[in-house]
Structures are given as C-alpha cells and as structure tokens.
C-alpha cells in the first residue's frame, strides 16, 4: 500500500513536466542560447568530439532562431547567434552549415557583414573545393560593402571552382557595370536556394526572393513613371494614380513598400526581417 502511495505521489510530481516545458519555453530568449565559456575552454574540452560539438552548436543556434521566429514580438539575440557560429566554424572550419546559417541571418538581418566575411574567409581557405564560400564573399562585397573590385575577385574564384555555374562569369562583369543590386540579390538567392536541403530555410529564401521580385517590379514601374512624367514620384501611390500600376503589391514580410526619394530606391518597412532588424540595408 505504501509503495502504491509512493508511486502515485511520484507520478503526480512527474505530471508537472508539461508545465516545466511551458515555463522554459516562455523564459526570456537570451537564456535559451546561453553558452558562455571562452573559445579556448570549449576547444580544449571538446576532446575528439569537436566536429560533433561544432554541429551541435550550429543546431542549437538554428533551433533557437526557429523558436524566436515563431514568437511574435521577440527579436533574436544576433550577437549570441554570431558567437555560436564563430565557435562552430572555429571548432570545425569545414562546417558549411554554420557558414550558411551565418550568411542567412547575420548578414541579411543583423548587418554583421564584416564579421561574417572574416568567418567566410577562414572557411574558404579550408574548403578550397567549395564555390559557395567565395560566392558568399563576392556577394557581400558587391551588395553590402559596395566593393565591386573585391567582389569580382571572389566571384572569379567561385567561377573557377564551379565551371558549371555558367552565370558566374557574367555575374562578375555585371558587378562592374551594372547598378541593379536587386537583380544581383535575386540571382544570388536563387543559387543559395538550389544548394539548400533544409526546407525551412528554402521557404524563407523563397519569401525573400518574392519580396525582392516585388521591389524589382516596383523599381521598373518607377522608371516608367519617370519616363512618362519626367520626375520622380513622391510616393508609390502616384504610380497607381498615374495608371502605371493597378495596386502596390504586399510585402511578404508584413511591412509595406515605400519609395525613398533620397537614393531613388524602393524599400520596405519590414526591412525584410520578420522582427524588423535594424541594420538591414533594405
């Protein structure tokens, strides 16, 4: 009888598990990604499992980011994600997943382009057969750092590593002569999409491509407006009232498109990040 009673008490206490999980889930986000030891401690204590640890750090950062995206109102801790990616790529400089994640999040959403470039350069030295890393570097230099010369060098490296990517040589040329950054970004994202297995990431890339295609469409409409009226529009609604467009397409990220007269570019209030990260170029 006593044993049965103890068993019941035990089972009763164990039934708190769903509440425990819910409480942990509601905890402030920085605590969910709380790996703090220095890199040296991590490296020395990883024994023969540093490649596995590198994968686990990448997974931890991916799950954390995925969880944050599902919670409206929370902004990912980009500095911590950057730290995880830095550790993951230092523990295993071949870990392409970590570079992919960093390129997708740190560069586009957090604006940590130079930090990510340092990691990519480290990886490009080790993964000397992989065209993706010089391709990422080339794109970052062209699109984010306005450095077409540096970009062309990396793109040439990428083209040598992947001769089957026939668009790369022309891409290099366009970096010099073409100012259409939206087109560059769409082409870049299509390449990344092709090389990605992860369904969530593929979906998010498609959303970004759709947004950029809307921007490209609006940029074309603005050019038509300029040809027609000889002036720049004050706002996008003028394109509708001038009969060039039937309506303004919605921003897949939930924001709205607007025309920035200062640089003549179409931008979006969402900054192409679900949480509206501050440092994104758009």
């Amino acid at each position, binding site marked *: 009888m006593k044993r049965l009673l103890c068993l019941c008490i035990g089972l009763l206490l164990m039934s708190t598990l769903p509440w425990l999980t819910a409480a942990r889930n509601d905890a402030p986000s920085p605590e969910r990604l709380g790996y703090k030891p220095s890199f*040296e401690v991590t490296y*020395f204590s990883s*024994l*023969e499992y540093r490649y596995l640890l590198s994968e686990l750090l990448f997974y931890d950062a*991916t799950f954390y980011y995925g969880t944050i995206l599902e919670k409206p109102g929370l902004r990912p801790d980009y500095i911590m994600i950057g730290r995880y990616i830095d550790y993951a790529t230092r523990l295993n400089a071949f870990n392409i*997943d970590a570079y992919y994640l960093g390129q997708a999040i740190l560069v586009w959403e957090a604006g940590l382009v130079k930090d990510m470039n340092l990691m990519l350069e480290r990886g490009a030295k080790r993964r000397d057969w992989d065209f993706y890393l010089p391709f990422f570097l080339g794109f970052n230099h062209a699109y984010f750092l306005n450095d077409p010369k540096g970009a062309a060098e990396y793109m040439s490296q990428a083209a040598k590593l992947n001769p089957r990517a026939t668009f790369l040589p022309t891409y290099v040329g366009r970096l010099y002569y073409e100012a259409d950054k939206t087109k560059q970004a769409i082409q870049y994202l299509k390449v990344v999409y092709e090389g990605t297995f992860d369904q969530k990431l593929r979906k998010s890339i498609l959303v970004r491509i759709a947004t950029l295609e809307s921007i490209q469409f609006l940029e074309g409409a603005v050019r038509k407006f300029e040809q027609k009226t000889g002036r720049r529009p004050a706002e996008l609604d003028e394109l509708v009232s001038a009969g060039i467009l039937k309506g303004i397409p919605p921003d897949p990220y939930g924001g709205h498109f607007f025309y920035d007269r200062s640089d003549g570019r179409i931008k979006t209030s969402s900054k192409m990040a679900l949480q509206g990260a501050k440092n994104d170029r758009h």
Partner: protein
Amino acid sequence: MQQRFPIAAATFKGGMRDKFLLGLGIVSMLLVCTMPVFGSFSMRDVAGAATTYGLSLVSAFGVLLVIFIGGTLIPRDIQSRTIYSAVTLPVSRTRYLLEKYLGLAHLLAFSMGALGVVNLAALGLMASYYPPDKPLAWGNYLVYLFFDLEKLLVLAAVLIFLASIATSAFLPQVLTVAVYAIGLTTEKVKLYVESAEGAKNISPALKVVVQWLYYICPNLSPFDFKVQMIYALPVDPKIMLLALLYGIGYIVVMLVLASFAFSRRDFV
C-alpha cells in the same frame, strides 16, 4: 588461438558474454540508426553532419568498451581469486598479462569492426540520398577505423598498466578516463602555450607542467582521422606512419611497465 593463447581466448569469450557489451552494442547500433535524424537538421551537408555523428558514436562506443570491459579484467580475477590459480599455471605473469591484453585487443577489434560495418552501411545509405559535395572516401573510413582502434589499444595498454598496480577496479577506470581526456588535450594545449598568445598568458611553471604531461601521457590526437573521412580530405602517409609507430611504441612501454609491476606484485 585457443590452444596457443588460452588466456587471451578466455578473455575474449568472457568479454563477448559480458552483458555490458551486449547492452552497449545494442544502444550503439540503435544510435547509429538515428544518423538520418541527426543529419536531417543540416542545411547544406546532410551526409557530412550524419557522418560526424556516426563517427563520434563509434569512437565513444570504443572508449566506453575499453573502460568498462577492460577495466574489470584483472581486478575481477583478483577479487574472484581466480588469479591464484592463474599464477600457479606454468605461464609467466608477463604472459598472463599480455594474453589478457591480447584478448581485450581482439574483443575491441571485433566490436569496432562490427559497429564499423553497420556505420558504414548507414553512411552509404545517407550519401546515396543526400550526395555530398565530394564523394565519400571509403579508404579514409578504413584509416579512421584502424587508427581509432589503435587509440583504443593505447588506452587499453594504459589501463592494463594501471590495473597491474591498483588494488581496486574503480581507480584504474577513473585514471584511464583522466588519461583519455588529457591525451586528447595535451597536443592542443602544448601548441597553445608555445604560441605567442600562450606565452603571454601562461606562466613558465605551467608551461613546464604542460610539456611534461605532453611527453608522459599518451597523445591521442594524432589517431583522430574523422575530419579526413567526413570531408574526404587527403591523408598524409607520413602522419599515418608516425602515428602508427608512436602508438606501437607507447603500447610496448606501457605493457613492459605493467609486466614489471605485475611480476613483483604480492597477491596474498
């Protein structure tokens, strides 16, 4: 083997009958089967992530095997008093010790081979579904397995030495775990203390301690060829040869020391 090395054969059979080996084998096989799940979270390199996981599992399995099966070989004989009949046999104590080691080595090779084959099949399956950037280098897999086994044999030699002087099973096991951790760290720490950054942060006394540990404890890092397998990187034959020679040398030294200690040991 049974006629030429009866103690080694008995050790191998005893190890095969050990329920711990069976349990560990089943758990490891099941974990290897979870490779696709682990790899599926990868964004770009599913086969690479799965391989990393699979190889780490095989290595962890081997280390647990050395510590829990190897750690009880001699202490169990002492505790069950079968050592008394063993030392009265017309074989020297050194031969008894060496045959125990041989039996353990045989058991390790068999277990690693069995798990290695299952792991290989799982890797092949993963690579066929998610082709990696570079085709898997199957030769590198053999290199990885061979040197992982050599690492386990070095660790087993350390364990036999510690068991030959210790009075309980627990102490050699704990010390072997410590040697395993130190053995995989000394090379990294030595290179760090000799670097410009390490010279600034590390005291000269600690530097001496690190260098002593580097030479006394086995350096297990050179036996790790996982990265060459995961990313199909070329393997340097010079490194393989040196690692092979170093491992054999360390095993010989440990077994000789164990023989000295065991020959002088009083079991009464």
